[in-house]
C-alpha cells in the first residue's frame, strides 16, 4: 500500500536526520556511527525478519553499558547518554510493530536531536534541524492519519481512499506546512525572551589550539598555525559596510626578546574601567570604527580588535589590560562568543612621523631597546640599511622595505642550529614567515636604539561581500612590529612580504563565500542571539514605525497644503464609498448567480450529469425513470457515485416541483458534478 510505504519512508527519514545531527557534531566516535548504520539497516530488515529478540538484548545491556561508558570509557555524562540514545534508537528500529513502538522511536529521535544541540553549535546543526523539522511534520501527520484510520476500521475506511489521499498535492501541502512551521519556529525563536540563568554552565566548545598568543611565545611558533584553515573569527564592520583591504586584528604585545623567546615585558594587569555596558580601555578624540566580532574558543584569553581598541562591549563581567593596549579576558573562553570592539584606526601621516624628533621616555627605552645576544654584524646591518635615513621614521621604513625586498616568504624555512635564529634568518637562510620578519625588524631597530616590540594577531583580506564581513582563519595568524614615536606613541610596521598564494577556483570561492555567510548568520543570529539583540530589534521596529507614521503624516500635510482642507474628507468619503460599493457588488454578484437552473423543459445540471455518466459508460436508456437510472448507476458503479441520487432528487424538485434552488444546493450540485468528472 502506497500510504504505508510513504509512512515508513518518512519514519526512516526522521531517524536518519536525528542520526546525522549526532554524527555531524564530531563528538561521536566511529563505532557508534557503525551502530547507527547497522540500526538503519536492521530497521529495514525487521520487516522481513523478526529481530525483536536482538532488540530486547540491546535494551537489556544498554544500562550496564551506560555505567561502564560513564565510569570507564568516555567519562562524560553527556557523551555517555548520547551513546545510550544511539543504542536505544537502533534497538527500537529493530522492532517496529505497534503504534507505541513508533511513538517511542519518535521520542528517541527527538532526544537524539536534543543531545546534538548540547554537543555542537556548528552550522551543520542548522541543516539537520531543518531536515528534522520537515521530516517530523511529515511523520507526525501520517502517523496521526494511520492511527485514526486503524482505530476507525470498523467504519471501513476505504484503503483506496487512503492511498488516493496521499498524492502529490497532499505532499505539497505537507511541504507547505513544514515551511510554515519553520517560519513560525524562527519567529518564535527570535521572540522568546532570553532570560538565561545559567545554573549549570554550558559544555565548553571545541578549543582551537594556537600557540602565538600566550604571554611567552617561542620564536617561530606562529608558522605551524598558519597551515590551519579553520575559521577562528568573523568580523563585521556594520558602519563601513565595505571591505578595507587587509585588516590587522591586534592581539597580544610582546616586548622582551632573549634571542629565542618573546615575552611580555610586564606581567601585571589591571581591570578595565566599565561605564554602563561598555568597557573603556582608553579615551580618545578620533572617530571609532565599530567591529562586531564572533570569536571561536582558542587557547588564549586575548581580545582581538583592529588597531587600537578603545572600547569593548559584550557578555563580559570583567576585562583586564596590561598597559600595552592589549585586552584580556579573565580566562580562556569556553565557547564561541560575540563582542563589539570600537577601535581608533587613525595613523599619523608620514610627514608627521618623519618630523617627530622628540626624546623617548626612559621607561620606553629601557623596556623596548634591549637586544638579544647577537653578533655585531646585526647592528652593522641595521646601520647599513638605515645609512641614508635621517629620521627614526625613515629608518623604520628603510628596515621594513629592506626585509620585504631582500628576504622571501616561506612556511618551511631551513634552520642552521649553529646560529642564533635571528642571525640564521638575516645572514644565512634569508627566508621565513612573519615571525622571522617581525623579529628581525624589531631586533634591527633595537640595535639602533629605536624602541620596537612584537605584536601578535591576525591579518586578513578575506572579505565576504555577501555577508559583509571578514573571515579570519588560523592561517591568518600573523605578527608584526610596533615602533614607538614620542609624539604619537606606537605605530605599526609590517616587514613580511606577501605570501605567494595559489589561485582560487572561482566556483569554490563563491560557494565558500555562501557557506561563510550562512555560518556567520547562524553564529550571529542563532547561536549568539541575545536579549540585547531583542531589545535592539524592538527599538529598530519602533523607529521604523515612527518614521513610517511621520512619512504618512508628511504626505497628508502635503496633500492638505496642496489640495485644501475640503478635499481630504471628500477623498476619504470617496474611498469609503468605493469600498462599500465593492463589498456590495460582490454580494450582489454572488446573489445574482442564483441558479436559474431550469431552462424550458430541461434541467441543465441533470443533462450535464447524464453527459458525464455517458462518458463513464453509464447511458440512460429511453423510458427509464430518473430514479431507476440513479439506482442502476449505483449498482454498476458503486457508492462512489452516490451523488447521482442527490442530483436526481434535486432534479425532481426542479423539474417537477418547480423549485428554485438556492446557492447552497448549487454548490452541492457543482461539488457532485466535479466529483463525477474526476470519478
Amino acid at each position: 500500500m502506497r500510504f504505508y510505504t510513504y509512512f515508513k519512508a518518512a519514519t526512516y527519514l526522521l531517524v536518519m536526520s536525528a542520526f546525522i545531527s549526532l554524527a555531524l557534531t564530531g563528538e561521536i566516535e566511529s563505532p557508534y556511527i557503525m551502530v547507527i548504520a547497522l540500526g538503519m539497516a536492521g530497521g529495514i530488515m525487521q520487516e522481513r525478519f523478526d529481530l525483536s529478540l536482538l532488540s530486547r538484548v540491546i535494551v537489556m545491556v544498554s544500562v550496564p553499558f551506560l555505567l561502564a561508558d560513564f565510569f570507564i570509557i568516555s567519562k562524560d555524562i553527556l557523551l555517555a547518554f548520547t551513546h545510550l540514545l544511539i543504542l536505544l534508537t537502533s534497538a527500537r528500529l529493530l522492532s517496529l510493530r505497534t503504534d507505541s513502538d513508533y511513538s517511542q522511536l519518535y521520542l528517541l529521535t527527538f532526544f537524539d536531536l536534543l543531545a546534538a544541540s548540547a554537543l555542537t553549535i556548528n552550522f551543520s546543526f542548522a541543516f539537520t534541524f531543518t531536515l528534522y523539522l520537515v521530516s517530523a511534520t511529515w511523520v507526525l501527520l501520517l502517523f496521526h492519519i494511520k492511527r485514526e484510520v486503524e482505530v476507525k476500521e470498523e467504519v471501513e475506511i476505504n484503503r483506496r481512499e487512503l492511498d488516493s489521499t496521499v498524492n502529490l498535492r497532499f505532499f505539497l501541502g505537507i511541504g507547505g506546512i513544514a515551511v510554515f512551521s519553520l517560519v513560525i519556529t524562527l519567529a518564535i525563536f527570535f521572540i522568546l525572551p532570553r532570560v538565561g540563568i545559567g545554573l549549570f554552565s554550558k559544555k565548553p566548545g571545541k578549543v582551537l589550539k594556537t600557540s602565538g598568543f600566550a604571554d611567552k611565545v617561542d620564536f617561530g611558533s606562529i608558522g605551524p598555525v598558519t597551515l590551519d584553515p579553520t575559521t577562528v573569527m568573523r568580523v563585521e564592520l556594520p558602519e563601513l559596510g565595505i571591505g578595507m583591504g587587509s585588516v590587522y586584528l591586534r592581539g597580544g604585545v610582546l616586548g622582551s626578546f632573549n634571542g629565542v623567546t618573546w615575552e611580555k615585558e610586564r606581567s601585571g594587569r589591571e581591570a578595565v574601567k566599565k561605564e554602563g555596558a561598555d568597557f573603556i580601555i582608553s579615551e580618545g578624540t578620533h572617530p571609532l570604527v565599530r567591529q562586531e566580532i564572533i570569536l571561536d574558543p582558542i587557547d588564549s584569553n586575548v581580545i582581538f580588535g583592529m588597531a587600537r581598541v578603545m572600547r569593548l562591549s559584550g557578555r563580559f563581567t570583567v576585562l583586564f589590560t596590561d598597559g600595552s593596549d592589549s585586552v584580556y579576558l579573565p580566562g580562556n573562553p569556553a565557547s564561541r562568543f560575540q563582542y563589539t570592539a570600537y577601535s581608533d584606526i587613525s595613523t599619523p601621516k608620514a610627514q608627521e612621523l618623519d618630523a617627530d624628533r622628540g626624546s623617548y621616555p626612559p621607561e620606553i627605552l629601557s623596556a623596548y631597546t634591549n637586544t638579544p645576544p647577537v653578533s655585531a654584524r646585526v647592528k652593522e646591518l641595521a646601520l647599513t640599511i638605515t645609512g641614508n635615513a635621517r629620521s627614526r621614521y625613515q629608518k623604520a621604513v628603510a628596515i621594513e622595505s629592506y626585509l620585504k625586498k631582500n628576504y622571501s616568504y616561506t612556511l618551511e624555512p631551513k634552520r642552521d642550529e649553529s646560529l642564533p635564529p635571528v642571525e640564521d634568518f638575516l645572514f644565512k637562510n634569508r627566508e621565513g614567515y612573519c615571525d622571522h620578519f617581525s623579529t628581525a625588524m624589531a631586533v634591527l631597530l633595537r640595535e639602533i636604539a629605536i624602541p620596537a616590540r612584537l605584536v601578535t594577531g591576525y591579518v586578513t583580506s578575506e572579505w565576504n561581500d555577501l555577508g559583509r564581513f571578514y573571515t579570519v582563519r588560523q592561517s591568518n595568524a600573523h605578527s608584526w612590529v610596533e615602533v614607538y614615536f614620542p609624539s604619537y606613541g606606537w605605530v605599526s610596521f609590517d616587514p613580511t612580504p606577501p605570501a605567494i598564494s595559489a589561485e582560487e577556483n572561482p566556483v569554490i570561492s563563491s560557494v565558500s563565500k555562501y557557506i561563510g555567510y550562512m555560518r556567520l548568520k547562524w553564529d550571529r543570529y542563532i547561536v549568539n542571539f541575545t536579549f540585547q539583540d531583542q531589545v535592539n530589534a524592538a527599538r529598530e521596529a519602533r523607529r521604523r514605525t515612527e518614521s513610517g507614521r511621520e512619512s504618512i503624516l508628511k504626505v497628508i500635510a502635503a496633500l492638505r497644503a496642496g489640495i485644501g482642507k475640503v478635499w481630504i474628507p471628500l477623498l476619504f468619503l470617496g474611498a469609503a464609498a468605493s469600498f462599500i460599493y465593492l463589498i456590495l457588488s460582490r454580494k450582489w454578484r454572488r446573489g445574482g448567480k442564483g441558479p436559474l437552473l431550469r431552462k424550458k423543459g430541461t434541467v441543465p445540471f441533470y443533462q450535464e450529469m447524464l453527459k458525464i455518466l455517458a462518458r463513464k459508460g453509464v447511458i440512460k436508456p429511453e423510458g427509464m425513470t430518473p430514479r431507476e437510472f440513479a439506482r442502476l448507476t449505483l449498482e454498476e458503479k458503486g457508492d462512489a457515485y452516490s451523488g447521482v441520487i442527490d442530483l436526481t432528487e434535486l432534479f425532481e424538485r426542479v423539474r417537477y416541483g418547480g423549485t428554485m434552488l438556492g446557492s447552497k444546493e448549487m454548490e452541492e450540485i457543482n461539488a457532485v458534478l466535479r466529483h463525477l468528472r474526476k470519478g
Partner: protein
Amino acid sequence: MSLSQLKQFLLRLLRPPRRLRFTPEGTRFVIVALAIGVAAINTGNNLLYLILAMMLSMIIISGILSESSLRTVDIRRSLPREAFAGKPFLVKISALNGKKRLPSISLTFQDYLEGKVSAGNQYFLRITQKGKVSGSYHLTLDKRGMHTFRGGSLSTRYPFGLFLKSRDAGDVSEMLVYPRILDAKELLRESGVDEGELESRIKGRGTDLYGLRGYVLGDDRRAIHWKTSARLSKLYVREFAREDARKVMLFLDDCIPEGFEDALEKGITITASLASHFLYKGYQVGLVTSGEEIPLGIGMSQLYKILRTLALVSPGKERERLFARVKDAGGVLVLPYDDPVWKEREGVFADVIRVTS
C-alpha cells in the same frame, strides 16, 4: 436588545465555539516542551531555544490546521424511514466542506442521542474543497418510541494528534422506533396459547365472492384475481362475503400499576408481533388501547398505523375505551398485568394472552 436576547448573547460568549482537550501524546509533548524551556533558560543555549520554538510552532500549527479542518463543514444526518427496536439500522452522515480552497482532513463526527448517549460516529478522512462525503454507522435502539438525535460534535486530532479540538455539529432530528417484532408463534407458545386453537377460534375465510378491490401489500397472493389484473394491468384481489370472519381486534391493556413497565413492553412486543403475524396472513387487524383505537384494516399501511401507535404507548389510566369495545370484540386481549377486572369479560375474547415475566 431585549433582556432575553442579551442573556443569550452573554451565554454564547461564555460558551466557547471550540472545545480543546490534550491527547495523552499532547500532554507528554507539552511536558517535554516545558522541560526544554527550563533547560533553555537555565543554560542559555540558543539551540535549545530553537528546539523549544520548533515545539511551540507545532502547537500553533496544530491550532491553525485543526481550526481550518473544522471550519465550515456542514454535517447532515439522514435517518431511515422505519426502524424497529433491537434491530440495527444505518444512519447516513454527510459532510459538506464549504471552504473554497482548503480541504478538511481527518474529521470524526460523534452523534448523540438525548441524554448525551453516544449514537455512533463517522470518520471522514478527507473532504475536498466544496466537496461532499458520505458515510454511515450502524445503530441499534433497544427501546421503542420517539428518539431524538440531539446533534453531535465534530472533532479532529489533525494534524499531529496532540490535541482533540471539537465543535457542535449536526442538527436535531427525531425518529420513531417501532416495537420489536418477534416470531408470533414462539411468543404465543411462551404465553401458553396454542396458535392453532387461536386461529380456529378466529373464524376462517369465507367463500362467497363479494367483489374485487385493488391489491394492497400484505394481501394473500392466492386471492389475486389474475384475469382482471391482466385486463386492467393492475393487481386486483377478491373480497369474500364473510370477510368479517377474518377479523381480529387486538386489545392491549396498558393500564398497569407501577413496577410492571417491563411487562407492558413485553405486551407491546406481543401485540405488535401478533398484528404483523395476522396482517401478513391476510386478516383485518385493529388495535385498542386505553388511549387509542385503530379500526380494522389490512395491509402494510395498517401495520404501520398499529406499530406507530404501539411505539408511542405509555401506561394508561382509564380502561373505559377498552371496556366499551369489549362486547363486540371477539379478538385477542393482551394483559401485561393480570387485573381481576378482566375476569368477567375474558369470555368474549378469542383468547387472552397473559404476559409472563
